């Protein structure tokens, strides 16, 4: 009876191993819309095997004559807002506008009000000379004009206006030191992304930077991290004067709130002592106020990143803690939308917390370069693998007879489970992970041969397995350490090694236990 059970167990394990192998190597093909399709999850490849986007970034050579504010020492203090620019920016920035920055729970309501106010301001700039339709609009226009004039007069007292040629990159900044610094900062930025993978090249003469990036979900973020210098400024929306810049910020972080099933991402800026005072001052000045005739007036600040407006807003409360929370994106019940906003907030926080690029780059070309490695060498690699596995299996069968055959089938089953783990555990397949995959298979064969050797010395199955496991795991402790350390690294070339090793060892241990039981 016991012998029959043993036979049934052996046959069952063999059948399961064969079935798993058939599934892993042949796939599960089911008809879908009239076509037979493999329903197994596809492998995810790294950029060496999948291909990559080759982005060329050249130094931005644009220049523009602008009227700017300068202080007594002649330092640049912002670009004077022109009427036309004002109008254009307002239209562009509608999506970035929000209500009272200090009262996030009111954002949605105030945003609606803001849109009305914005339309009024737009009328002011575009149709300033025309008669407006409603009394309210007329009043708002007049009040805004008066307010703007008063504001401009005040600013002009403090700052001179000058016409300067504003270059994206000043000539004195274009030097090898800044080329190097830019490259290092770009590397640091790209390495801040989890699961990063990139190659970077730099021309030391022209400063051109070529970055090779995988065409995956991180692509847009990576690209923006390269092309954004990282200058964060809070400016007077009405005049264009810089009120606060990055030098006043101690730290930035991305935070979130969840209220009434709505998620909202925020960029939290913590200012230094000087910044705290200025923030306090502007939080009392850039507010919504009601004039004598009951009309509401708003004075805005805009938060700009590299001259791109993140948000246009005003303050509801006086800020005396030196902390400013800026809503990023809209409050949303859609978690994916929130994640996108949270990622944007994190990216901006990272840029604020780190050095600004000394040079401005612009994207000059973008090509996807397909990898031909699988196409060129895939078949050869497959043939070699099959031949090697067949030879090892034949060796095991010849040397250990039925036990060798049993072990050979189980080893192929092990490879099959490992490939399934690769598909479903999001292990990125890179050349490095393929090498480690082979190493895992090799470790498994060493283990098999150890067990078979013990069995041939008439040891019981349990004893043979336990002794082999003890010997193997004690000697491969360095490999286990490498597997764990490498798995937690952000670089794809490194964590693909760690993940493959980890799953290789894990599957090996589980398979051994299954056979043991």
């Amino acid at each position, binding site marked *: 009876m016991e012998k029959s059970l043993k036979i049934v167990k052996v046959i069952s394990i063999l059948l399961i191993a064969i079935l798993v192998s058939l599934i892993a190597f042949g796939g599960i093909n089911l008809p879908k819309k009239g076509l037979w399709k493999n329903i197994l999850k596809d492998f995810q490849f790294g950029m*060496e095997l999948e291909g990559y986007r080759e982005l*060329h970034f050249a130094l931005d050579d644009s220049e523009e004559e602008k009227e700017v504010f300068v202080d007594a020492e002649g330092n640049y203090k912002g670009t004077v807002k022109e009427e036309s620019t004002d109008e254009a920016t307002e239209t562009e920035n509608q999506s970035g506008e929000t209500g009272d920055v200090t009262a996030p729970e009111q954002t949605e309501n105030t945003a609606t009000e803001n849109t009305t106010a914005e339309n009024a301001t737009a009328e002011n700039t575009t149709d300033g000379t025309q008669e407006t339709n409603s009394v309210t609009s007329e009043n708002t226009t007049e009040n805004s004009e008066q307010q703007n004039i008063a504001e401009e007069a005040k600013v002009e007292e403090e700052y001179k206006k000058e016409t300067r040629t504003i270059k994206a990159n000043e000539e004195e900044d274009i030097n090898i030191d800044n080329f190097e610094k830019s490259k290092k900062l770009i*590397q640091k930025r790209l390495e801040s992304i989890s699961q990063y993978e990139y*190659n*970077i*090249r*730099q*021309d*030391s003469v022209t400063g*051109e930077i*070529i970055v090779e990036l995988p065409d995956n979900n991180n692509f847009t973020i990576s690209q923006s991290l390269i092309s954004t210098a990282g200058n964060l400024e809070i400016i007077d929306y009405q005049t264009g004067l810089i009120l606060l810049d990055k030098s006043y910020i101690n730290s930035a972080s991305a935070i979130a709130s969840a209220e009434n099933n709505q998620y909202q991402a925020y960029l939290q800026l913590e200012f230094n002592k000087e910044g705290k005072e200025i923030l306090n001052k502007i939080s009392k000045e850039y507010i919504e106020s009601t004039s004598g005739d009951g009309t509401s007036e708003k004075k805005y600040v805009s938060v700009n990143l590299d001259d791109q407006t993140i948000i246009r807003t005003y303050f509801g409360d006086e800020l005396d803690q030196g902390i400013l929370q800026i809503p990023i994106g809209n409050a949303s019940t859609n978690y994916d939308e929130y994640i996108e906003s949270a990622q944007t907030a994190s990216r901006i926080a990272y840029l604020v917390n780190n050095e600004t690029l000394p040079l401005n780059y612009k994207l000059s070309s973008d*090509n*996807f*370069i*397909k*990898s*031909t490695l699988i*196409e*060129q060498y895939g078949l050869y690699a497959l043939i070699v693998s099959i031949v090697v596995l067949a030879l090892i299996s034949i060796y095991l069968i010849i040397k250990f007879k039925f036990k060798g055959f049993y072990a050979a089938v189980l080893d192929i089953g092990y490879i099959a489970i490992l490939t399934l783990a690769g598909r479903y555990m999001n292990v990125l397949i890179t*050349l*490095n992970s393929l*090498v*480690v995959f082979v*190493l895992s298979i090799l470790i498994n064969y060493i283990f098999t041969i150890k067990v078979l050797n013990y069995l041939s010395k008439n040891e019981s199955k349990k004893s043979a397995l336990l002794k082999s496991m003890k010997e193997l795991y*004690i*000697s*491969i*402790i*360095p*490999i286990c*350490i*490498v597997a764990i*350390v*490498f798995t937690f*690294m952000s*670089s794809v*070339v*490194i964590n693909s*090694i*760690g993940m493959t090793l980890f799953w290789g060892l894990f599957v090996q241990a589980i398979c051994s236990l299954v056979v043991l039981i």
Partner: protein
Amino acid sequence: MKLSGFKKILLLGITLLIVAGIVVVALRGINVSLILQKHDAINLLVGKEVSITDIENICREVFGDKKVIIRKLELFNDSVNIVAESITDEEKTNLINKINEKYQTEFTVENTEVQTISNIRVRDLIRPYIRPFVISLLVILTYILIRFRKKNILKILLKTFFVVVLTEALLASIIAITRIPLVPIMINLMAIIAVIELVIIIGNLEKSSNVNQ
């Protein structure tokens, strides 16, 4: 530490090889694969399905013995990226003429740009490996320190560290001297060799502990 005659000769040989490797790297640098070194590239948007073999044949005629890499551009198999160490005006003209002839395209020398692509620095390739490798090595050495604390631990640690560093330096020297083009996977293979070496060292230490017990 007393070394036998054979070990002395071996150590001397290894030292000489490492010195030779350093000299070669100092004088000629590391030989890196074409795709990692500074190269010229031409992107051709042919507009109809191209075969890599056909382009390879054309490149062989145009570039002769020069190393060339051909890759497909974008997703529609109708564009190619041809990479060579350098592309002269004459080679460019010949290449364009032959492509035009083969695919009935109308590329001209003027509208086809040869892009100079800078090199990828070896230090940038090694960069991601440094932190995990150092952390792993420290953890492994700590493990050895705890596991074999009853033995002459300082000697074991120094020996382990020395053997790993020496092997890696030897491998790097061999790669430099033989002028084998460096490809990124070699760095991984070198790391694997170091780990296997540690496995062997720990295995031997375990064996000697078992014998002593």
